[in-house]
């Protein structure tokens, strides 16, 4: 089966991950009498996944470069508090451009937190584990100090749309347009890749396999749009009229933008190439004349910026800034990256894998909430899944190496 899949050009690891996710969805649907697969729940799941998935994309880069960041939840909290403080205390939430200014400040704070940790790890040679453990404490404490532990509310009305709640989606028409555009892009990419490989007489997967891959991807995209549109938006219609569907949530769009950008950087940009080279063999990267310290610093800064984006989504969804957001986020984020196939040995990991990993974890969490499983038991279950996933990966790699 595996050899057959590989011959057809499928990434067996990614395929099995998606298969595992499908199984989990079926199981959760059965266990919740179908509630799990209702449009309303899937819309919520899509929003819940975004925060973890966006940060998991940065964690892939870090782990690929043989680093780790245990402080992403604390970074989220500090950036989120700065955003809320800018809007509520400093400028006033409905002042024009207050929301934009607060986002800029949040992003700057994220970059600075990343630069601080990256500098210690890259230029002073401290282990990332230690530096970011310190960051975990420092940034969480700093988040508390911003408003002395108080919650800052309310945030700007327009800003709250970023969180995917009221007015936080793009409606059915735009969603369909985006879905169709995405499908066109998938098909174009597939055709382009085949042409390019044919020109250099490189080995090629059979046409039916590429067609199947493109068809499955397009079906998933259009299916996703259909489900998002099937969730009625109660605020969209006048009284008595049929409400419009919500469509794709704004956080999902942000995640898509992040994922596409970081996938392109990983595969097509010099920086991504250097991150993977460094992770594969740090000594070789140095001897090849790469600016290895700067690469490590930049990876931490990227993570900081993504934590800030996650903070924007979270504060927008809550409509307020609290210093307690992002607790345990680091663990979910690392778990998502690892379940998605990122290896602690360095040099191996993909953005799509991490996103599916994030969906998988969030699905379990969401499904178990629907089943009234207590938070203590949910933690135990997710811990066990993490061990299981890494164990399966080990077995998988050993088999492959033989």
């Amino acid at each position, binding site marked *: 089966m595996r050899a057959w899949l590989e011959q057809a050009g499928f990434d067996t690891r990614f395929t099995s991950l998606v298969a595992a996710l499908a199984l989990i969805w079926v199981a959760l649907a059965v266990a919740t009498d179908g509630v799990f697969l209702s449009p309303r729940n899937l819309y919520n799941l899509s929003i819940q996944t975004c925060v973890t998935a966006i940060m998991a994309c940065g964690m892939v880069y870090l782990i690929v470069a043989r680093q780790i960041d245990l402080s992403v939840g604390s970074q989220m909290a500090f950036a989120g508090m700065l955003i809320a403080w800018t809007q509520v205390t400093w400028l006033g939430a409905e002042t024009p451009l207050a929301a934009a200014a607060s986002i800029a400040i949040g992003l700057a704070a994220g970059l600075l937190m990343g630069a601080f940790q990256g500098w210690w790890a890259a230029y002073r040679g401290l282990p990332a584990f230690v530096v970011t453990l310190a960051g975990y404490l420092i940034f969480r404490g700093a988040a508390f100090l911003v408003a002395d532990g108080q919650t800052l509310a309310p945030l700007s009305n327009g800003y709250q749309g970023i969180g995917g709640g009221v007015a936080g989606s793009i409606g059915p028409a735009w969603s369909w347009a985006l879905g169709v555009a995405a499908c066109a892009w998938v098909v174009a990419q597939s055709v382009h890749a085949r042409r*390019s490989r044919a020109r*250099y007489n*490189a*080995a090629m997967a059979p046409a039916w396999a590429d067609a199947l891959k493109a068809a499955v991807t397009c079906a998933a995209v259009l299916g996703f749009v259909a489900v998002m549109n099937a969730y009625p938006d109660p605020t969209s219609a006048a009284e008595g009229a049929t409400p419009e569907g919500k469509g794709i949530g704004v956080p999902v769009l942000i995640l898509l933008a992040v994922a596409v950008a970081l996938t*392109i950087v990983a*595969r*097509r*940009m*010099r920086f991504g*190439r*250097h991150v*993977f*080279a*460094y*992770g*594969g*063999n740090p*000594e*070789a*990267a*140095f*001897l*090849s*004349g*790469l*600016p290895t310290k700067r690469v490590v610093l930049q990876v931490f800064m990227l993570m900081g910026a993504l934590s800030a984006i996650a903070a924007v989504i979270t504060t927008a969804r809550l409509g307020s800034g609290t210093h307690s957001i992002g607790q345990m986020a680091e663990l979910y984020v690392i778990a998502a990256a690892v379940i998605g196939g990122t290896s602690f040995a360095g*040099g*191996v990991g993909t953005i799509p894998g991490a996103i599916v990993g994030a969906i998988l974890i969030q699905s379990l969490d969401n499904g178990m909430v629907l089943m009234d499983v207590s938070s203590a038991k949910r933690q135990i279950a997710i811990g066990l899944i993490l061990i299981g996933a890494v164990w399966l990966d080990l077995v998988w790699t050993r088999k492959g190496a033989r």
Partner: protein
Amino acid sequence: MTPLVEVRGLSKRFGGIHAVDRVDCTLGEGEVVGLLGHNGAGKSTLIKVLAGVFPPDEGEILVRGTKREFASPAEARAAGIETIHQSLALAENLDAAANLFLGRERLTPWRTLDSDRMEHEAAGVIRRINPAFTDMRKPVREMSGGQRQTVAIARALHFDARILIMDEPCAALGPAEARMVLDTIRRLKAEGLGIFLISHDVEDVFEVCDRVTVMKAGAVVGTVRTADVTREEVLAMIILGEKRGAQAGRA
């Protein structure tokens, strides 16, 4: 004629240990100079200084008569010195083209990696060294020792280096692959490159080197022309750390 490389009084200490102790040596165009000595004799440290990995504590390096200081491997490369380290310094998770262009990637006008062009160029240079090398897309970790060596040599040659340092290029290879490397060295010599060759194998050294510089405990024991000495005399220099008689004329 100005030598390609001239090393004058070069020293490198680690703690109290003189890893390289006031070493002088030269390398001319179209010349292969062997660096011989036991483990710990200082050969690898010497070439790492030349490759920009460590700064020297004392002494100077002249490239074509101009004094140069290398703050990083990238600067040594920019001065035309390419080094093939014993570890080969390849990223095992990347393919041949990615390794060949590591740090010197070809970019499209949109600043993205020009993968097609890199793969095409890499295939060209690699096949000139090793015609049996065909699978350009597999990662280094799936390659044989000879294929890895090919990638490392191709990387050193593709950017028109005139000075090449090879640290134990044949140590991990089978006889056929070692032959390929020695043939390559001879061809490069004919093209006018200067090559420092570090090796344990006295046979290999006598086959391709014009001169050998023998080191012991960080210092140079002596430099002799391979044509003027026997293998036994060179072995004696390595083991005893002293140059016998006057028959070993200085180059």
